[in-house]
C-alpha cells in the first residue's frame, strides 16, 4: 500500500514521525513535492476563497497526490496539548478537502487529541488499521518513529551575520520557501542571520504567557507570543519579523498582542497570500534590514 503525505501545514514539524511510522508498518510513502506554482493554482481552485493561504496550498498538495497513492494521510489535529486548542481550520480540514476535491483515494483522518505518548499510541493503532492489525509491529514502529521524531530538531539559528532577526510565525510559512518567497535566503543575502522560535526555551515561553490576563488557548499562539516577547526582552535578536498569512485568525490576534507589548523593538509583520507581489516584499525586507543595521551602529556609538 502506498501512503501519500501532503507536504503542507504541520508537515514541516512532524513529517519524520509520520514517514517513519508508515514505513515501519510496511507501507510505501510518497510525499508531494515542495510547493510550486501548479500546486498553488490547484489549491486555489479547490479551496474555499475565504480560507487562508496555507489551507489553499494544502488542498493543492492533496490534489497532487491523487492517482499516486492508495491512501492520503491527513491527521485531524484537534489539539496538540491538553486543554488547549489548535486553529479551528485544522479541525475541519478533512471536511473541506473531501467536499471539494473530487476523485480522492482513501483518507486516513484519525484525529490527534494530544501529542503525549499515550494518546499518540492510540492514534497510531487506529491509523495503522488499514495496513496491519499486528500489535507488535505497531508498537515497534511507533517507538522508532517517536525516537526519530525526537531526534529531529528543526530550527534555524544563524551565526556570523552582522545582524540577527527572529522569524516568528507558523512553521508552514517559515519553512515553505515558495510561500515565503525564499525569505531566509533573502535575509541572509542582506547580511541578516535568522533565529527561529524553536530556540526559545519552553519554560521561558510559559513565564511570558503567564503575564497575560488570559492564557491563549491556541497552542501555536501561545508559543509565538511567548517566544516573541522573550526574544524582545532578552535581545536574543535585533528585531522580529512575524510571518503571517492573510486572513489567518490566530495571526490577527497574536500580532496585535505582540504589538501592544512592543514599544521600541523593531517589529514587522509580513503578510502572505497568493497575490503578494515580490517587488513590494523585497522593498520591505530591504528597508527593515537597513533599519536594523542603522539602529545597531547608532546604539553602539551611544553606548561607547
Amino acid at each position, binding site marked *: 500500500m502506498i501512503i501519500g503525505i501532503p507536504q503542507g501545514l504541520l508537515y514541516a514539524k512532524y513529517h519524520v514521525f509520520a514517514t517513519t511510522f508508515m514505513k515501519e508498518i510496511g507501507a510505501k510513502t510518497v510525499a508531494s513535492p515542495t510547493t510550486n506554482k501548479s500546486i498553488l493554482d490547484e489549491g486555489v*481552485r479547490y479551496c474555499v*476563497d475565504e480560507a487562508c493561504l496555507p489551507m489553499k496550498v494544502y488542498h493543492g498538495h492533496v490534489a497532487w497526490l491523487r492517482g499516486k497513492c492508495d491512501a492520503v494521510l491527513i491527521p485531524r489535529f484537534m489539539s496538540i496539548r491538553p486543554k488547549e486548542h489548535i486553529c479551528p481550520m485544522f479541525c475541519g480540514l478533512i471536511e473541506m478537502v473531501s467536499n471539494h476535491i473530487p476523485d480522492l483515494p482513501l483518507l486516513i483522518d484519525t484525529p490527534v487529541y494530544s501529542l503525549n505518548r499515550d494518546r499518540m499510541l492510540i492514534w497510531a493503532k487506529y491509523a495503522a488499521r488499514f495496513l496491519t492489525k499486528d500489535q507488535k509491529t505497531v508498537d515497534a514502529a511507533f517507538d522508532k518513529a517517536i525516537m526519530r521524531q525526537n531526534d529531529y530538531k528543526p530550527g534555524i539559528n544563524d551565526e556570523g551575520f552582522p545582524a540577527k532577526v527572529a522569524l516568528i510565525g507558523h512553521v508552514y510559512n517559515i519553512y515553505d520557501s515558495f510561500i515565503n518567497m525564499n525569505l531566509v535566503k533573502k535575509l541572509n543575502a542582506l547580511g541578516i542571520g535568522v533565529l527561529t522560535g524553536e530556540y526559545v526555551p519552553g519554560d521561558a515561553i510559559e513565564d511570558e504567557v503567564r503575564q497575560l490576563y488570559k492564557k491563549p488557548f491556541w497552542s501555536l499562539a501561545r508559543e509565538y507570543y511567548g517566544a516573541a516577547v522573550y526574544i524582545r526582552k532578552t535581545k536574543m535578536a535585533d528585531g522580529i519579523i512575524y510571518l503571517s498569512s492573510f486572513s489567518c485568525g490566530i495571526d490577527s490576534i497574536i500580532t496585535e498582542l505582540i504589538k501592544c507589548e512592543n514599544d521600541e523593538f523593531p517589529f514587522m509583520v509580513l503578510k502572505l497570500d497568493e497575490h503578494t*507581489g515580490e517587488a513590494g516584499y523585497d522593498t520591505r525586507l530591504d528597508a527593515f534590514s537597513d533599519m536594523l543595521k542603522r539602529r545597531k551602529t547608532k546604539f553602539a556609538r551611544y553606548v561607547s
Partner: protein
Amino acid sequence: MNKELYLGVDVGSVSTNLVLMEKSGDILEKLYLKTSGHPVETLKNGLSRFKAMLGNKTEILAAGATGSGRQLAGLLIGADVVKNEITAHAVAALSVEPEVRTILEIGGQDSKIIFVRNGVVYDFAMNTVCAAGTGSFLDRQASRLDIPIEEFGGYALRAKNPVRIAGRCAVFAESDMIHKQQTGHCNEDIIAGLCLALVRNYLNNLAKGKEIPGPVVFQGGVAANVGIVAAFEKILGSSIVIPRHYDVMGAYGAAILAKEHIGETGKKTCFHGFDCVNDNFSVKSLECKDCPNRCEVVKISVGGELKACMGDRCGKWNCLPKDMSMNA
C-alpha cells in the same frame, strides 16, 4: 392605430439602458447610456430621445424597471414591475435562448452567474465586493494602456504568448500588469493574459466547484469584448452564445416582466408617459436622526409636493404609493 409597446428600464451604476419591446417580444428600439452618477438626468434624457424617435403614435402597455437604481426609476416613470436585475437577466436570456443552462453576466460594477434548470433559476452568485473583471476595471486598464476600449479585445486575439497575471483583486491585477509592462512584455500578451486571469478569477469566485453546463449565454456590456469572450471559450472548452442585444438584456427582461405582469393581472399600466421625468422632480436625501439606526432616507417630490420616500427601516417615512409596493 397606435403602436403598442412595452418599456423596460435598467438603471445601473455605470450605464442606464432603455428598451422598447413590441408585442411579439422583439426589440424595437434600445438605448445604452452612461449613467455618470446622474440617474435621474440620464433617465430623462433617454425617455425624451424615445419620444423624439416615436412621435405620438405609440402607446405604452406596461413598463418595468430593474438595476441598482430600480426603486428610484420605478417611482419616477410609474413602473408596473420593479424587479432585481438577476431575475430580469435570467428572464431575458431565457426568451432569447429557451434551452439556456448557464448565464454569464458582466456589467459595469458587478458580475453574476446564473444557473437555470428546466427554465427556472436554481442557483446564482453575484460578486459585488471586488471590481476586478468588471466593465469599469477594463475601461480603466484600456485608458491606462492608451487603447480605445472597443479595440481592447482585438489586441487579446493577436497575442502569441499571454502572460500570467494575478486576477483575483483589481489592485493586485493592476500592479501585476504594470510590473509586466516594465519587464518589457508587449501589450497584446498583457491584455490576453489579463483577459484569461479575469475569466479564471470570475469562474473561481462565482462558480467554485460548480459545473458550467451549456448552452452558455454571455451578456452585459463586457460581452462586447472579444478578448474576454475568447478567454471564456478557451477555459470552458465550449462555444458561448452572445445575444444580439447583449448590452440591454436587463432592460429587455424588465420589459418582458412588465408584459407578463399586465397580462396576468389585467390591470392598466401606471406608466406616467415619456414626459414624466421633468424639472419638477427633485430628489433629496437626508439622514434620519430619530433613532440610532441613522437610515439614509431619499425624498422624492414633484413640483414641491412630497411624492415618496424610501430607504428607512422602521416605516415612519415610508409613504410609497400603494400600487407601487415593492414588487420584489
